[in-house]
């Protein structure tokens, strides 16, 4: 395993204020080269007065290197709750006093969820399980579920089943799972403050195996879990070095009973600055709005789509609810952003 080397850059690289925006315009917009970690930090430290210009630049970068299309995805929890891991933001961990109880979805309901997702125009359906990694019972459920969906619904199938063995990676690829989600969650230097039951390096190893097996890699993060702004820049740099096909960006939705249950919600301006910074770090990636946007951005979620985001998760999440699907589809139509599967285009 080789962990990604993050180009740290120097203070001179980073510039400040208008300097970093001018640099980013030349480097990212015109040349398609993502910002270094030091440059990402300079973007995250821009004052509120520069936010409009920053979002416009991130939008220009997205339009130039990705185009106007938006990828729409739905997700469902195949196995909910009772996870042995202790990710401090997660209500599905069995190690905290969370109200979320264990539940399994049956195959007909899984197919129905895929059908309902496809009916929204979504091109991607992700099957998620709250586990450290799949055991044989879960793999059998996934085998049956993927086969049943492929027989009944026209949609790309993704999976998020935790850390995998090489044999499981190979089997998922052979099943036709075209994308696998496994998030780095937070900066390597902050990880042990967020998770103690497995390591950042173990997560990274699964990501590498997924890509080596020919599946698309979906690897994202959760923002607002106590990281410093420097660590947020580090995280964006680490993701950029890993270069996933998709980066889902979650904002902490503090869950009752979890260690981070009383953490503050990320402010809207900070969230938008983060979105723009991630886009400038990864000009060509599929940057997806994932969980938490409703409480973090409220009605400002359009600003994210005009500030670097080019993919959305529609409908409900795993344990919480999203906005009505029709609201999101109307928003995309109003913005003249057509829905399209993006994996082949970027």
């Amino acid at each position, binding site marked *: 395993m080789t962990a990604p080397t993050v180009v740290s850059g120097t203070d001179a690289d980073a510039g400040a204020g208008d300097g970093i925006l001018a640099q980013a315009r030349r480097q990212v917009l015109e040349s398609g080269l993502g910002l270094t970690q030091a440059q990402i930090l300079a973007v995250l430290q821009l004052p509120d007065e520069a936010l409009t210009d920053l979002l416009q630049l991130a939008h220009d970068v997205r339009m130039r290197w990705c185009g106007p299309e938006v990828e729409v995805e*739905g*997700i*469902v*929890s195949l196995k*909910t709750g009772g996870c042995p891991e202790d990710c401090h933001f997660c209500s599905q961990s069995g190690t905290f006093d969370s*109200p*979320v*109880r*264990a*539940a399994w*979805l049956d195959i007909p*309901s899984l197919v*129905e*969820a895929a059908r*309902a*997702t496809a009916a*929204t125009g979504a091109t991607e359906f992700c099957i998620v399980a709250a586990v450290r990694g799949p055991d044989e019972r879960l793999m059998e459920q996934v085998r049956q579920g993927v086969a049943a969906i492929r027989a009944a619904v026209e949609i790309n199938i993704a999976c998020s089943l935790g850390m995998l063995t090489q044999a499981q990676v190979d089997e998922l690829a052979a099943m036709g799972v075209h994308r696998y989600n496994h998030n780095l969650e937070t900066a390597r230097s902050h990880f042990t403050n967020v998770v103690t039951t497995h390591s950042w390096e173990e997560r990274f190893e699964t990501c590498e195996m997924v890509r080596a097996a020919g599946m698309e890699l979906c690897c994202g993060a959760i923002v607002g879990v106590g990281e410093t702004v420097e660590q947020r820049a580090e995280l964006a740099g680490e993701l950029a070095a890993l270069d996933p096909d998709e980066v889902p960006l979650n904002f902490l939705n503090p869950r*009752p009973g979890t260690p981070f249950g009383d953490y503050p919600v990320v402010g809207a301006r900070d969230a938008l600055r983060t979105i723009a910074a991630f886009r400038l770090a990864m000009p060509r990636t599929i940057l997806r709005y994932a969980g938490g946007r*409703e*409480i973090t951005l409220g009605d400002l979620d359009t600003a994210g789509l005009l500030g670097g985001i080019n993919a959305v998760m*529609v*409908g*409900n*999440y*795993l*344990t*919480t*609810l*999203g906005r009505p*699907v029709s609201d999101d589809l109307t928003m995309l139509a109003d913005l003249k952003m057509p829905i399209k599967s993006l994996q082949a285009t970027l």
Partner: protein
Amino acid sequence: MSIRVEPAGAAADGGPSDGRPAETLFCDRCGAEAGHGDHSACTVARRLEPPRYCGSCARRLVVQVTPTGWTATCSRHGTLAN
């Protein structure tokens, strides 16, 4: 809006077993008594969350969220779905 779609078997404690919504005694988000304390934050949060506790007995519910809805089952009082 949620509806009761599947009552549990005859309730041994005399609670409703005919599909009628049971009396709401407990907050379905935090599980505390509905008549005591301030549950306004729970009410706001519930716009983006399914229920987690049975309003009749405060048992934790087995909840399945799907892309377009949810079901929430109390072992004594049956299943709610939106």
